[in-house]
């Protein structure tokens, strides 16, 4: 697993994807930070994290789009699948590499808030809680991305497909607002809406059930990716 993780990390930086991701994430993250806090002259971080969530949904597919699709296209997956390594560690190696990239970017992003400490009374716990939540949501998006990239040879298809599924996860919250107040479906959609769940963190609650939800969804998609590879051997 470590070998695959290291190779994956390396490949982010031998190509352009790693740099493009970091530059975009830090630059646009910085822009969002400036606009929502410094420019708006507030220490309220609600808007920042809401925009960052939407931004992550758009940029994270960039990180995962070539995870498996590229290996399949270049036939290098044959090396991985005939090496004495389990499919699980192959998938986890790639998953963790993408997580490291996202986590690292998020960590640098959090440094922006040091500026805010000079001007306002920042609630550190709220800040940390929100970053953890964003990391968890990102983990969900990454697991979706890894899964979709295992389904196709084409990077673009993988990226667009991932974005589609992520937007679906976010979009069910919108459908909710169109439904009558006590309709049963509303509760179901509330449960699966990534956006609605994220709002609880933004509003200052560290909701454990949401943490479990994000981890579970990620686990399901990682498992599905493993199944895709397991299944392909029989087809």
């Amino acid at each position: 697993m470590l070998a695959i993780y290291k190779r994956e990390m390396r490949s982010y930086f031998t190509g352009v994807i790693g740099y493009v991701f970091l530059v975009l994430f830090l630059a646009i993250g910085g822009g969002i930070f400036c606009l929502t806090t410094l420019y708006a002259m507030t220490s309220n971080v609600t808007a920042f994290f809401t925009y960052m969530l939407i931004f992550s949904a758009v940029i994270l597919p960039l990180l995962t789009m070539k995870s498996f699709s590229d290996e399949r296209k270049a036939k290098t997956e044959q090396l991985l699948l005939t090496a004495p390594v389990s499919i699980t560690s192959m998938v986890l190696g790639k998953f963790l590499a993408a997580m490291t990239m996202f986590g690292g970017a998020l960590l640098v992003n959090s440094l922006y808030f040091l500026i805010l400490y000079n001007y306002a009374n920042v609630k550190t716990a709220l800040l940390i809680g929100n970053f953890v939540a964003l990391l968890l949501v990102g983990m969900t998006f990454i697991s979706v991305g890894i899964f979709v990239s295992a389904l196709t040879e084409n990077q673009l298809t993988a990226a667009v497909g991932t974005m589609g599924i992520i937007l679906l996860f976010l979009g069910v919250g919108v459908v909710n607002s169109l439904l009558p107040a006590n309709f049963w479906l509303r509760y179901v959609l509330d449960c699966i809406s990534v956006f609605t769940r994220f709002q609880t963190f933004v509003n200052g609650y560290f909701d454990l059930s949401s943490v479990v939800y994000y981890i579970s969804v990620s686990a399901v998609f990682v498992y599905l990716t493993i199944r895709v590879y397991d299944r392909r051997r029989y087809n």
Partner: protein
Amino acid sequence: MVKVEHLVKRYGQNYALNDISFEIGEGEIVGLLGPNGAGKSTTMNILTGYLSSTSGTATIDGINMLEHPIEAKSMIGFLPEQPPLYQDMTVEEYLNFVYELKGCKLEKEAHLEEIINVVKISDVKKRLIKNLSKGYKQRVGIAQALVGDPKLIVFDEPTVGLDPKQILEIRNLIRTLSKNHTVILSTHILAEVQAVCERVIIINQGKIIADEKTSELTKVIEDGYQYEIKIAGPQREVESALEKIRGVKSVTATGERDLDSYAYIVESEKGIDVRKPMFNLCAARSWAILGLMPIGTDLETIFIRLVDRASGIEPERKSRRSAH
């Protein structure tokens, strides 16, 4: 070392492999031969754990590939048809990666250095793989298979797309490797099997149609031999004299003439060598033999005959395939 029992691989209604069984002993060098699409790559992919069979088992050194894939895979070095190379890595980085991927326990520097020397890639080890020529890429692919010093090495069409000089070099390399490893090699080039392998397993339409020592392959032909002989002497006389030799089935003049010599195709009965009697006849009559060449004993012809024979046995299956 390798035991394959009743291997079947089915894609829908089509059989890529249909009940294949063979055993390969330690230290053997075996060629899997067959036309394109015969099932060679499928067999190798199942052996190396890349694909799973529909039914049947493949065991490597007594370890079942499906039940204990990691243990079984650790004994195999595999060079697929297209070498699995990461274009963005240098040769050295790539081999380091493979070393770590395989969880190799040997002393790293010395082991990789040895492989680099064996496959002769030391002059390109610092270069990016994407900038290498096809021949070097193939060598790096072979190097990758050797990492971890596996007991069994599987090469899927190792010389495809190489120039004649590179082909010879790779064949020599495989021959060298076979001294310390069990080697399975697939190819559709017959000369390759003749040049490299001790034993050949011929696959056609997913079935084994011959499994022989390369040197004994000619024996699988049930009918007799044919020779082309050029004799300087009167055509009619020569023809009738040849026909009288015991074991000669037929004599046909080809019509080819060179001054006073004529060419004939002599067909012999099975198990009788007519070459000496022909020589003695000509010597007695003072007819000079200007050429004597066996026809149809080269692998090419044997192969075609075997394939034809196998197809003839199963017209039913063949017609079903063509319907798809």
